[in-house]
């Protein structure tokens, strides 16, 4: 049944007597509803349907059942892309403890918080394409800044983004650098809600800053840390831009072995125009993200502290 009739009759009569007619509600959600239905719900259904079809570049597709999915399971490229996305996600998760410690440090200082927040946030507001280019230059094997810095301490340089063995890790480092600002803001908001009396009381009891971090900050901040972890996994599994700009060039062989799931999806669906196969990749990505999220919500009971 509909929502209003489930409410107590007295409230309903009051709302009916004073409130505007339900038509206003429908009129005001109409633009959103039409847009979301046409551009999100329908495409979602279509992609789902296409994943069970063989779709030639032109003309209608034919129903092939689970063929795309069985092909996917036997596709070495898919598993490689899947593995790369998993590695990239794991690297980005390393950024969460870094952000947690930095957020706590920023919270501790009296003056200059805003300055640090702005500096750490700069990579977030910079065009990802631009960021990728700068890092590509820094990673350059012949005259990049990184190899020069490493040579100062006697570490031999590498072709970081032209070598399969390093490319996904090099991109992961950039990913951490790019996501730090957003994570700091979310964690900073969480830190604001920790009652300051707890710190005062514990420092009277003689607890140092490190001790306070582990016994007050970390447990009370854990809901925010959890949120950041969930969001990191979701966005890391969807990474596209960095691979597209840092690896894609005519002569870069690292691209073959360092694609992510979404890059593979883009290539299949919009470069090779095999939309059925691309759709199957997207559906699998949805399943992976859902599983990863559900898994995290299960595990959170063991480490997230709610009061």
């Amino acid at each position: 049944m509909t929502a209003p009739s489930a409410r107590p009759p007295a409230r309903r009569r009051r709302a009916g007597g004073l409130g505007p007619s339900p038509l206003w509600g429908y009129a005001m959600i109409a633009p959103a509803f039409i847009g979301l239905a046409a551009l999100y719900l329908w495409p979602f259904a279509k992609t789902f349907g296409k994943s069970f079809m063989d779709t030639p570049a032109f003309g209608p597709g034919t129903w092939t059942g689970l063929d795309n999915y069985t092909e996917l399971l036997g596709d070495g490229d898919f598993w490689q892309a899947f593995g790369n996305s998993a590695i990239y996600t794991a690297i980005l998760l390393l950024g969460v403890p870094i952000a947690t410690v930095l957020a706590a440090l920023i919270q501790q200082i009296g003056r200059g918080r805003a300055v640090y927040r702005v500096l750490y946030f700069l990579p977030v507001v910079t065009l990802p394409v631009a960021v990728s280019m700068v890092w590509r230059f820094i990673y350059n094997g012949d005259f990049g800044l990184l190899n020069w810095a490493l040579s100062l301490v006697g570490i031999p340089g590498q072709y970081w983004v032209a070598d399969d063995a390093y490319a996904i890790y090099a991109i992961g480092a950039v990913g951490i650098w790019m996501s730090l600002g957003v994570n700091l803001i979310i964690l900073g908001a969480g830190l604001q809600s920790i009652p300051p009396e707890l710190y005062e009381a514990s420092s009277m009891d003689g607890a140092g800053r490190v001790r306070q971090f582990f016994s007050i900050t970390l447990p009370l901040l854990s809901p925010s840390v959890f949120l950041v972890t969930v969001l990191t996994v979701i966005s890391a599994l969807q990474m596209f831009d960095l691979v597209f700009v840092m690896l894609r060039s005519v002569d870069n062989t690292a691209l073959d072995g360092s694609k992510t799931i979404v890059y593979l999806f883009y290539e299949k669906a919009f470069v090779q125009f095999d939309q059925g196969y691309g759709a199957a990749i997207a559906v699998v990505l949805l399943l992976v993200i859902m599983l990863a999220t559900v898994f995290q919500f299960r595990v959170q009971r063991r480490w997230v502290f709610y009061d």
Partner: protein
Amino acid sequence: MTDPITKPRNGTKAGRRGEWVLHLALTATAALMVAPFAWQLLTAFKSTGEASQSPPTFWPAAPTGDAFTTFFDSVPVWSQFTVSASALALRVVGQLVVAALAGYAFARLRFPGRTVLFGLFIAMLMVPSQLFLIGQFELIRDFKLLDTIPALAIPGMFSAFGIFLMRQAFMSIPTAYEEAARLDGAGPLRTFAFVMLPMVKPTLGALAVLTSLYSWNDLLWSLIVSPRGDNRPLTVGLAGLQGQYGTDYPTLMAGALVASLPLIVIFLVLQRQFFNGIASSGLKG
């Protein structure tokens, strides 16, 4: 702003020394965060030869604006800038109108099916955007909109996230204001536009800057709907530059600098809105 944590310690010598250590650690990390931008800036003023030297020079030996000249000569910067800016404006305005209307309806108006519809919208927040791309592309193509500015902006105008954000904002406002407006004889639309909307300005601002960020930075969707490139936004133009000037790093750095600058300036001016938007949503990308 007072800091409850350091306040009791600030007076002591040990507290002040602790503060110095913190600043040192934070500054060192900040230097790492900013170093790529500094390197980009320095490189943009070098000659191609100097940028390809090993070991690298720090300051440009003979500062030159050649890289900028090459960039402006080889990329239709102004027209691509106009495309990016128009798509951004269209998307932000559309997003604010759609999200504010729907957010208000979901927060305050009663109509059958409200809960179900809201649940449906929110469920879509969990679906990765790639699942919509094929269908969105076909819709845009069927409406003959490929390679137009509306094509870049339209899908981003509708977001379950924006509706959710606005709904939360409207829900936090006491109902007394609407009742007063109603008693004064204002209809629902006037109440919405002249009483409620001004009260959620901070959230509208946060949504506007976040939408601008997504719009200006978007690459995947822009690549998909601008296949011929007559209406390419700056982000696609810049990505294309790399194919052309593979290792001419000063030109690439100059381009990257020019293309990112508008949003960095907006960010520096509207920091608070950015931070509020991120903190209240926790959503990125």
